[in-house]
C-alpha cells in the first residue's frame, strides 16, 4: 500500500503554491534599489580581430553610466575551467584564457566585447547601437576534423593547434583491443553524430550584482544550480574576492539541465561593475542571447567498432570520438567527453576489452559543456545503436543480443574494463519489465494496424547505465577535477521542535523542498510540515557543490541523513538525562523517546526545548543546542539503469516520424517520492525525443548560428510527445549510500535517443537503412528512403 508521508510517499510539492499563483521569486524578479542595467554587445562574426572599439558616442548617450571593454578588465582573471584532462601522452590539455570580455579577438558569434551600463534598460540598448567596433573578419573553423588539419586557422593564436587534448582510455589496453578486433568473427562498425543541442531552460540566465562599500561586501543573485561553486570560481579565480566578502544567491531557478552549472562571464561582470560604479547592476539575458551564450551540449562525432564471436558475445569495443569544445573551455567541458563518457562505454554488458579515444577540439562556436546526461547520453547512444546494428548483421533479435551480453545480477559488484565498479543492478529484470509494459507481444498487431493506415511502425529498445551521485572526491581529484564533489547539510532543530535544513544542493524544478523534508521527517517520525529546506544562498547554507549529475538525493540526501543521525544521537543523550535512564536503553521512534521495558517516555518537542532552555540538562556531558552538520563524500558513483522502448510511426510519403508510444523501466534503487521521480523521467524522455526527432543546433561553414531562436530550433511541444508508460518497480538499492538511492534526473535523456532511432530504423527495416543521424527530421528520413530506393 502506498505511504502517505515520509520516504516512498508521493507527497504533493510544497513549493507548488508559490509557483501556481505567480509568486515564485526568480532572479529577474529581483530588483535592488538604485540598480542600473547592463546590455552586452556581442560579436556577430564567428572569428575576428578587434582593431578598435570606439565607445565615445555611446558613453555620451542619455543615461549611460559607463561602457566597459576588455581594457577595464586588465588584471582581472579569466573565466576558469574546473577540470584538467591529461592526454594520452601524460600531458595536460591545452587551456586557453577565457577573458570576461573579448581581448584582441572575438572567437564565436555571441562572444561579448563590450557592455553598456545605463540607468534604464532601454537607454543601455540605445547606447549599445552607438558603439563603433572595427573588427576584421578572420576565417572561421567550424568543422572539427577541418580544425585539426595542418595549417588550419587557430582559434587561439597562443596555442599550438586547435586540439585541446587527445585522450586514450584505457591506453594500456589499446593493443589488446586492436588485436581482438582484428581477429574477431564479426565486427560491426558504425559512424554517427551526436547532434549539438541547446539546453533551453525556460528561464533565461540573469545576474544582479550589488556592492556595499561600507562593509566591502559583494552580493550576486544569479540563475545557478550551484551558488557555492560560483562563489568559489568567481571569487578565487576571476575577481579575487574572499568568500566572506562575497555572497551568491540563486533564488527560484527556472530549470537548468546543466547549462546553469557553469560560471559565466556575465556573473563576473555584474559583480565587478557593481563595485566599479557603486551601483547595483542587473543583466537579463534575452532568449536570442541565450542561444549564443549559454553553453551548448553534446556535439560528438564518433566511430564505433564492436567485435563479437559466432554467438554474438561481445569481445571488444573501440570508439573514436571528436568532441567539440567550442571557442573556450566552459567550467566542466573537458570532463564530459572523457570521464563522464569513456567510463560508461561498457554499458550493461560484459565486454572484456574496451578502448576509447577522444579528441577534444576548439572551434569558433559557443562553448560546449554538460547538458542533461553529459557524456553518458553520448556513450549510451553509441553503444545502443551499434548493438542494434550488430543484431541486424548477426541475425539475432536485438533484445536477445543484449540479454546474451548482460552482466548478470549475481556478478555484482562488477568491475568494468573502463575503471568503474557497478555496485548493483538487474538488467534482465528491467528488460523483462520493459517488454511487459511496452506490450512487445502485441506489437505485430499494432504494426499491421498502422500498415492498414499506410504508416510504417517500428519498435526499438535501448538499455542504459549511467554513473550518478557525482562523485568520490579522491577519485575525481585523480581524474583532473579541481574541486571536491561532496555535499553538505546542516540540520538545525529549533527550540520548539521545528527544523531548518540547510543544504548545498539546489532545486530548480526537482522538488527538493518536498522530497528532502520527507527524508528527515521519516527519520525523526515528525510531520513533514515541521521541516523547512533552505538552499540557494551561500550566506545561509554550508559550502556545498550543488545540483547536477543526478547527485542531489544520492549525495545531498546522504549528507542530510548523516546530519540527522547526529541529531538523533545527541537527542537521545538529552532524553536519557530527562528520563533518568541509561543512554543505551533509550529508543527513538515516531517522534517519541522511550526507555525499553518501562513506560517512561519523552516527546521530541520536550527534548528540543531542553536543548535550548537547558534548565534541566546534562551540561557537564554535552553542549546546549541541537544543530549538526555533515559533509558527505560518496564512496562510489551510483549506477541507475533501465530499459527504454519507443514505438514510432513513419509516414512513407513525407518521412515524418511520430513517437506514438514510449515505455521506461528504470532501476533507481530506492525511491523517495515516486511522483517526483516519474516527473523527472517524463521530462528527460521529452528532451530525448527532442534530440532524436526535433532539435539541432546548426552552424554554417562561416560559423554563423543558423538556429538562433525558437523559429529555427525546434523545441518539443505538447503534441510532439505521447503519454509515457514509466515504471520504477525494479529496485536494486545502492549499497554504499545510506538511502540506497541512485538518482533519476538524467536517465530519461540518456536512455531515450537510441530507443527512438532504433525504432525508426525498425520501421524502415525493408529499406535496409543502417543509420540516420539525429534529429530524424522528415527531410532526413525521406532522403534516406529515397536513397535506399534508388540504391544509392
Amino acid at each position: 500500500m502506498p505511504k502517505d508521508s515520509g520516504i516512498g510517499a508521493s507527497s504533493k510539492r510544497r513549493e507548488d503554491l508559490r509557483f501556481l499563483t505567480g509568486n515564485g521569486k526568480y532572479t529577474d524578479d529581483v530588483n535592488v534599489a538604485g540598480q542600473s542595467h547592463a546590455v552586452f554587445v556581442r560579436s556577430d562574426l564567428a572569428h575576428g580581430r578587434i582593431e578598435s572599439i570606439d565607445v565615445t558616442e555611446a558613453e555620451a548617450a542619455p543615461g549611460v553610466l559607463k561602457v566597459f571593454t576588455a581594457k577595464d578588465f586588465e588584471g582581472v582573471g579569466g573565466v576558469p575551467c574546473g577540470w584538467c584532462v591529461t592526454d594520452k601522452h601524460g600531458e595536460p590539455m591545452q587551456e586557453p584564457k577565457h577573458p570576461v570580455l573579448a581581448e584582441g579577438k572575438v572567437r564565436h558569434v555571441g562572444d561579448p566585447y563590450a557592455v553598456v551600463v545605463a540607468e534604464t534598460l532601454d537607454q543601455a540598448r540605445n547606447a549599445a547601437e552607438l558603439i563603433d567596433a572595427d573588427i576584421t573578419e578572420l576565417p572561421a573553423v567550424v568543422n572539427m576534423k577541418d580544425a585539426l588539419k595542418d595549417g588550419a586557422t587557430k582559434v587561439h593564436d597562443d596555442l599550438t593547434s586547435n586540439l585541446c587534448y587527445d585522450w586514450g582510455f584505457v591506453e594500456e589496453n589499446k593493443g589488446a583491443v586492436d588485436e581482438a578486433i582484428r581477429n574477431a568473427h564479426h565486427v560491426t562498425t558504425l559512424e554517427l553524430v551526436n547532434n549539438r543541442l541547446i539546453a533551453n531552460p525556460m528561464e533565461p540566465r540573469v545576474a544582479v550584482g550589488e556592492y556595499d562599500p561600507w562593509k566591502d561586501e559583494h552580493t550576486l543573485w544569479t540563475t545557478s544550480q550551484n551558488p557555492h561553486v560560483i562563489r568559489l570560481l568567481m571569487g578565487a579565480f576571476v575577481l579575487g574576492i574572499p568568500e566572506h566578502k562575497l555572497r551568491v544567491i540563486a533564488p527560484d531557478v527556472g530549470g537548468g539541465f546543466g547549462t546553469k552549472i557553469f560560471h559565466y562571464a556575465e556573473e563576473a561582470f555584474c559583480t565587478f561593475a557593481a563595485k566599479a560604479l557603486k551601483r547595483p547592476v542587473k543583466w537579463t539575458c534575452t532568449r536570442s542571447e541565450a542561444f549564443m551564450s549559454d553553453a551548448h551540449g553534446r556535439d560528438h562525432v564518433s566511430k564505433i567498432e564492436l567485435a563479437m564471436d559466432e554467438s554474438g558475445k561481445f569481445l571488444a569495443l573501440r570508439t573514436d570520438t571528436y568532441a567539440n569544445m567550442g571557442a573556450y573551455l566552459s567550467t566542466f567541458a573537458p570532463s564530459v567527453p572523457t570521464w563522464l563518457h569513456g567510463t560508461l562505454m561498457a554499458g550493461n554488458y560484459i565486454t572484456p576489452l574496451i578502448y576509447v579515444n577522444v579528441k577534444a577540439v576548439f572551434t569558433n562556436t559557443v562553448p560546449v559543456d554538460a547538458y542533461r546526461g553529459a557524456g553518458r547520453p553520448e556513450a549510451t547512444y553509441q553503444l545502443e545503436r551499434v548493438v542494434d546494428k550488430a543484431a541486424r548483421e548477426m541475425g539475432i533479435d536485438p533484445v536477445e543480443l543484449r540479454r546474451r551480453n548482460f552482466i548478470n545480477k549475481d556478478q555484482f559488484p562488477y568491475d568494468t574494463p573502463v575503471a568503474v565498479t557497478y555496485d548493483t543492478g538487474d538488467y534482465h529484470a528491467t528488460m523483462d519489465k520493459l517488454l511487459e509494459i511496452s506490450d512487445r507481444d502485441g506489437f505485430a498487431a499494432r504494426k499491421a494496424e498502422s500498415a492498414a493506415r499506410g504508416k510504417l511502425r517500428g519498435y526499438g529498445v535501448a538499455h542504459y547505465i549511467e554513473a550518478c551521485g557525482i562523485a568520490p572526491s579522491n577519485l575525481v581529484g585523480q581524474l583532473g577535477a579541481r574541486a571536491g564533489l561532496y555535499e553538505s547539510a546542516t540540520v538545525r532543530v529549533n527550540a520548539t521542535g521545528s527544523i531548518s535544513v540547510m543544504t548545498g544542493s539546489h532545486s530548480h524544478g526537482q522538488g527538493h523542498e518536498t522530497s528532502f523534508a520527507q527524508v528527515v521527517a521519516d527519520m525523526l517520525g515528525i510531520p513533514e510540515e515541521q521541516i523547512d529546506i533552505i538552499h540557494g544562498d551561500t550566506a545561509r547554507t554550508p559550502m556545498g557543490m550543488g545540483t547536477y549529475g543526478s547527485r542531489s538525493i544520492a549525495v545531498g540526501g546522504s549528507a542530510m541523513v548523516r546530519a540527522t543521525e547526529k541529531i538523533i544521537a545527541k537527542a537521545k543523550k538529552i532524553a536519557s538525562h530527562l528520563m533518568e535512564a541509561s543512554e543505551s536503553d533509550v529508543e527513538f521512534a515516531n517522534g517519541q523517546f522511550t526507555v525499553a521495558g518501562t513506560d517512561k517516555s519523552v516527546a521530541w518537542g520536550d527534548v528540543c526545548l531542553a536543548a535550548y532552555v537547558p534548565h534541566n540538562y546534562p551540561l557537564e556531558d554535552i553542549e546546549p543546542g541541537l544543530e549538526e552538520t555533515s559533509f558527505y563524500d560518496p564512496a562510489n558513483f551510483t549506477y541507475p539503469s533501465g530499459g527504454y522502448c519507443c514505438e514510432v510511426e513513419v509516414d512513407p510519403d513525407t518521412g515524418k516520424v511520430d513517437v506514438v508510444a514510449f515505455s521506461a523501466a528504470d532501476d533507481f534503487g530506492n525511491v523517495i517520492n515516486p511522483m517526483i521521480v516519474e516527473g523527472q523521467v517524463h521530462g528527460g524522455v521529452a528532451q530525448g525525443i527532442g534530440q532524436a526527432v526535433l532539435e539541432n543546433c546548426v552552424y554554417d561553414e562561416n560559423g554563423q548560428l543558423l538556429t538562433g531562436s525558437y523559429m529555427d530550433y525546434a523545441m518539443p511541444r505538447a503534441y510532439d510527445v505521447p503519454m509515457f508508460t514509466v515504471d520504477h518497480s525494479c529496485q536494486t538499492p545502492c549499497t554504499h549510500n545510506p538511502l540506497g538511492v541512485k538518482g533519476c534526473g538524467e536517465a530519461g535523456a540518456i536512455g531515450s535517443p537510441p530507443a527512438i532511432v532504433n525504432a525508426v530504423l525498425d520501421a524502415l527495416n525493408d529499406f535496409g537503412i543502417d543509420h540516420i543521424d539525429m534529429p530524424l527530421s522528415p527531410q532526413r528520413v525521406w532522403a534516406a528512403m529515397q536513397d535506399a530506393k534508388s540504391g544509392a
Partner: protein
Amino acid sequence: MSNKMHIKMNVNGKDEEFLAEPRELLIYTLRERLNITGPHIGCDTSHCGACTVTIDGKSVKACTMFVAQASGSSVTTIEGIGTPDSLHPLQEAFKEHHGLQCGYCTPGMITRATKLLEENPNPTEEDIRFGMAGNICRCTGYQNIVKSIQAAAVEMSSAKEAAE
C-alpha cells in the same frame, strides 16, 4: 523620449493609468511598471508562452504586444486567476497531478488553460496537446500538464452541473 502615450487599462480588476513610450511591451508594463511578476519572459519571438495573459477574453503573449495596443483593455494574469487561499481548479489540478517542476512556464500554462477550457470545456487529450501548443515546458514532458487539464475539466464540468 517625449512622445509618451496615455494608457488606461484594467489589470486583474484594478484600473491603471500611466504614460508610456510607444515601444513599451506589455510584458514590461506588467512586470516592471506594475510589479505583476507572475507572467515571465521566456523568449523574444512569442514562441514559448511564458508571458501568456488574457486580454478581453483571449489568450495573448504579452511579450509581443505593445502596451499601447492593450490600452482600454481588460488584462488578466495568473495573479487574477486564483490566490493561495482560493486556488482555481486548474491550479489545484496542477498541484495534485504534478503538472509543474521549475514553475517558470506555469503561470502562462495555467492562464492559457483557463481559456482553453472556456473554448472547449470537454477537451480530448489531442485537443489539449494542440490547444496548449503555444506554451513550451522544458521540465515535465507535458504528460502531467495534460493530466492536470483533463482533471480540471472534469472538476469544472461537474461543478457547473451541480450549480445548474
